[in-house]
């Protein structure tokens, strides 16, 4: 899967594309954590417009990044999930810790 990063004002936007399953999760985690440590920003947003599929391994990956960022008092958000991804994010309760935002908020 592809991961791109963009800093916009104080926000780090992380663009995930492809499919996030157990095959991809370890490398995704590593690449995201490297960026989380490298850049300076106040909050982070996962943009999932191009994430075509994810399962509960992806939920675990998001929770892990949330824990890391909340230790630094940084907020994390999610935007633009497709239908399949939305369904799994909603049922897992992830939006309670990483709220879903509309593009325009940033």
């Amino acid at each position, binding site marked *: 899967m592809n991961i791109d990063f963009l800093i916009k004002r104080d926000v780090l936007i992380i663009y995930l594309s492809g499919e996030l399953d*157990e095959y991809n999760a370890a490398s995704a985690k590593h690449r995201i954590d490297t960026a989380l440590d490298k850049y300076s920003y106040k909050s982070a947003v996962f943009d999932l417009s191009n994430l075509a*599929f994810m399962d509960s391994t992806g939920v675990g990956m998001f929770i892990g990044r949330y824990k890391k960022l909340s230790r630094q008092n940084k907020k994390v958000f999610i935007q633009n999930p497709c239908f399949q991804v939305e*369904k799994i994010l909603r049922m897992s309760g992830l939006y309670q810790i990483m709220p879903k935002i509309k593009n325009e908020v940033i």
Partner: protein
Amino acid sequence: MKFNNEATIRFKSKSVNEYFARNAIAAFIMQLNPTIEQMNDVKTAVSEAVTNCKVHAYDSEDDYIEIFCGIEGEKLHIKVSDSGKGIADIEKAMQPFYTTCPEDERSGMGFTVMETFMDSLHVENNTPKGTVVYMTKIFGNSGK
């Protein structure tokens, strides 16, 4: 049971086969004329079951995971089996957020996803060893 159609896929316990498994099953169920949501539900449930075999059942990538798919009218039966470590307390394992691998950032939501996305879920010990996951989904108007 007499199925209208059936297929079995058997593959190595490698992560890259999670993609293969969910897309092979997706190709099989096309004949049921699924909605996009039904298709996604089955792909996700299969991905969860296969990931569990890879992550929890086996230590090596040289073991085998098998998925049987049978169509009985509008009902899809899926059976995912491994011959790995097995589950000591199945009821406990199926609870939301329960995981034996929190250090690997597993969410413990695998069985909950299967249960939510399919119409039924049943987990058993395999013989002589390992785990079998049975799931069904109904593709008519009576399904989820």
